[in-house]
């Protein structure tokens, strides 16, 4: 027979909380989970009255629970927020179209306004097409970089003051592990992705669920009967992040508090002061926040447009500089950047530094201008 609930002492416990080890009944769990989210919002001063908050809605469990909770807590505690759903359509057949359907169902139920921005519309490339060029690896790099900007651009279009994302404690813990596995000192410095605001984009970010366990989010959605889309992204299995994810699950199995413990670690890391940190500037091409002359998205796009999809992946700084100076690359260098082996034009036939061709090379020219506008016109002052 299950133990009595450790909070009310009356009902029988329905679950054991991985974070604290307590056994709670269903009602006490729901109440505790909601109250914790509220306290996280208050303590972290995540919102101000009157703000317009765009909720990054993917149709998955995290953003569905987040949207549900923000609406509920806004009513319960009178935050005075204007809440919107913002979805990004990466163009992944069989994954995003189904999850967008879940977002639309949520929209109908909740009555919150929904906006969808697509990669194709913003960048001229859908993820499916990128994946065809790139092969199985590194898709998540493109998707992640593009999504970050896509949310910003979408939020600006909607006039939002803030973006709230469904990142949970597991995501934070994975990021802490990832930063070590990739040797990413710069990210460690920025609080290993654990800080309250994202800090990277043009619109302030917040993660109200960043202390909530993935397991508890799923339980909450289950008990509340929330409808969400739960298929893994078709490209995710190949991603390096998957290793960190598997590791985290094993750590949690060995000690359930490990997820929160990693979060604590991430917050308390301090970087040596003598290490130079990249200066933050703006992208020469689109005006987005960037530590290099071009932001990551523009470098990736450049690579795609030139038929050198690996241009923005890994350490190709020298080659990138060469391209910027208009110097031609050797065959080997081109192959290094992921140029297709077959059908390559001989070196001497390359037209003045314009490398590689694509079926629809210049189609996105006008689209780019549209995208560049919000940043280039200086609407963003931070």
């Amino acid at each position: 027979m299950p133990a009595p609930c450790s909070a009310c002492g009356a009902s029988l416990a329905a679950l054991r909380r991985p974070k604290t080890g307590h056994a709670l009944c269903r009602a006490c769990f729901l109440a505790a989970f909601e109250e914790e989210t509220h306290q996280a919002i208050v303590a972290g001063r995540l919102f101000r009255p009157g703000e317009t908050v765009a909720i990054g809605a993917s149709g998955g469990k995290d953003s569905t629970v987040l949207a549900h909770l923000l609406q509920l807590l806004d009513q319960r505690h009178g935050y005075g927020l204007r809440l919107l759903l913002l979805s990004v359509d990466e163009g992944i057949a069989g994954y995003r179209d189904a999850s967008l359907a879940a977002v639309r169902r949520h929209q109908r139920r909740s009555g919150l306004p929904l906006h969808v921005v697509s990669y194709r519309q913003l960048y001229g490339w859908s993820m499916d097409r990128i994946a065809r060029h790139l092969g199985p690896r590194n898709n998540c790099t493109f998707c992640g970089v593009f999504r970050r900007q896509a949310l910003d651009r979408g939020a600006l279009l909607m006039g939002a003051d803030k973006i709230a994302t469904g990142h949970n404690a597991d995501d934070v813990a994975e990021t802490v592990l990832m930063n070590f596995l990739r040797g990413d000192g710069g990210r460690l410095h920025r609080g290993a992705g654990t800080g309250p605001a994202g800090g990277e984009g043009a619109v302030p970010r917040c993660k109200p669920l960043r202390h909530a366990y993935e397991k508890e989010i799923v339980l909450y959605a289950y008990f509340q009967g929330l409808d969400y889309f739960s298929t893994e992204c078709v490209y995710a299995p190949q991603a390096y992040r998957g290793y960190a994810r598997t590791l985290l699950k094993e750590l949690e199995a060995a000690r359930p508090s490990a997820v929160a413990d990693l979060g604590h670690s991430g917050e308390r890391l301090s970087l040596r002061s003598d290490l130079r940190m990249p200066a933050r500037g703006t992208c020469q091409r689109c005006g987005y926040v960037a530590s290099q002359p071009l932001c990551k998205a523009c470098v990736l796009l450049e690579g795609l447009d030139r038929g050198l999809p690996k241009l923005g992946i890994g350490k190709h700084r020298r080659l990138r500089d060469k391209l910027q100076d208009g110097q031609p690359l050797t065959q080997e260098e081109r192959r290094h950047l992921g140029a297709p082996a077959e059908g390559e034009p001989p070196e001497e036939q390359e037209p003045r530094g314009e490398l590689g061709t694509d079926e629809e090379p210049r189609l996105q020219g006008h689209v780019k201008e549209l995208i560049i506008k919000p940043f280039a016109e200086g609407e963003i002052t931070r």
Partner: protein
Amino acid sequence: MKCKEASPVLVIRVGDAFCKACFREYFVHKFRAMLGKNRAIYPGEKVLLALSGGPASSSMLRQVQEGLSRETAKKLRFIPGIIYVDEGAVCGQSLAEREETLLQMETILQASGFPYHLAHLEEVFDLPSSILQRVPHNPAGPKNSYKEAVEGFIRQQRQEEGGGPSLPERQIQEKLAEISMRDAPGMEGLAAPEARLLAAVRTEQLIRLFGSVKTLTAKEELLQTLRNHLILHTARAQGYSKAMMGDSCTRLAVKLLTNLSLGRGASLAMDTGFSDDRHGDVVVVRPMREYSAKEIAFYNHLFGVPTVFTPALDTKALEKASIHRVIERFLYRLQAEFPSTVSTVYRTGEKLSATPGDASPAAEPERCLLCLCALDTNVEDGSALQAILVSEQLSQQKLPAALPTERGCCPGAEEQRGCCMNTTAPGADFLPLLCYGCRLTIKDTTCLESLPLYVRAEAERRKRRAAMKLEIQEFLLEDEAVTPDES
């Protein structure tokens, strides 16, 4: 291939093959370079090598021997001693097996020609509480620079040349004569049967202590803590000012990710850096930190470095049984697929700072009772720690009604308060004295009464001091946070 002459015997990095002779030179040079670069060990300083019998520390011992046997100009100039800690009681070794291991270890220790100390983990029950206090670095010591110290030492050595053995050797002989090797502090002056009886009681106590720890993860942590205290005690008692640990690069990469997962992010740099001065007077150094486990295994194999395999807490345990185990397996697997994994993790660790950026160097931070790292448990708004505390609070009954005392975990302890404060949080009043990571260890310990007396006594002392401070708070003027002498 480096020398292009002899045939290669191993690959360290891709395309970087060594023959036996070049490998040896490379390996030996790396050790000297590590010590030279860090300039942490002064000439004539007494250095305690912590030898576990495992590959890395055995290899470290060989490097010190190599260094001391060099001609004067290249000679290492410190005075080594060795400590071996027998942990057999908690690692499932029978008495006979422990004796067998000790015999093997002693052969190696004697062959080294250095003074040595055999310690048994049981001796932690006789440690003084002062082991948990930071001792400021001896201010009377030489304040001059490393360079001056080296020059002074060479001058002194020249004067002594020609008459009698050289300084380190003479000191070694003196030490060998003066150190009585096996007596644990508590066993002094006891007749043999009584000593044996006491030893048996201690072993029993130790087994009970580890038996009261619920998880293998916490057992690993506790063992490490106690072992460090024992090494520190021996160093202090015998006048060593440095303790050398044999952590390899591979080991440190595992430790970095493990400690990260144990919530020890704040002390990561101290736990894995070259030098670690948390104890103040005895500085821990890790000169093997740039060798991979593979280099060490090859060196030991090719140059006949003796090692002794002793079972660890987790030997043959299930692979997912502890955080330590999970991380080790994960890293080795990833390393097999991405050969730069270990070095990337290691180098990320190098980027960390041992002192939190905003801490003023003047204020001495409050330190964890067990690991002596600066406390990382201040509750910041919006932090993970705050969220955990909120969750704990919300998951418990609002009014802690005066429940009838539930069954105590220690026989006979039901009536007195002390052993188990309550069932959800054993030793709740202990926790404020600990860092985040050590709190987790203690939360997994069901019976705090079985902790050694020095830990409990120091905890009491700190609690009393805190209470006293609270009482007199209102009479204190601002800025009067000066703690009266901690001696």
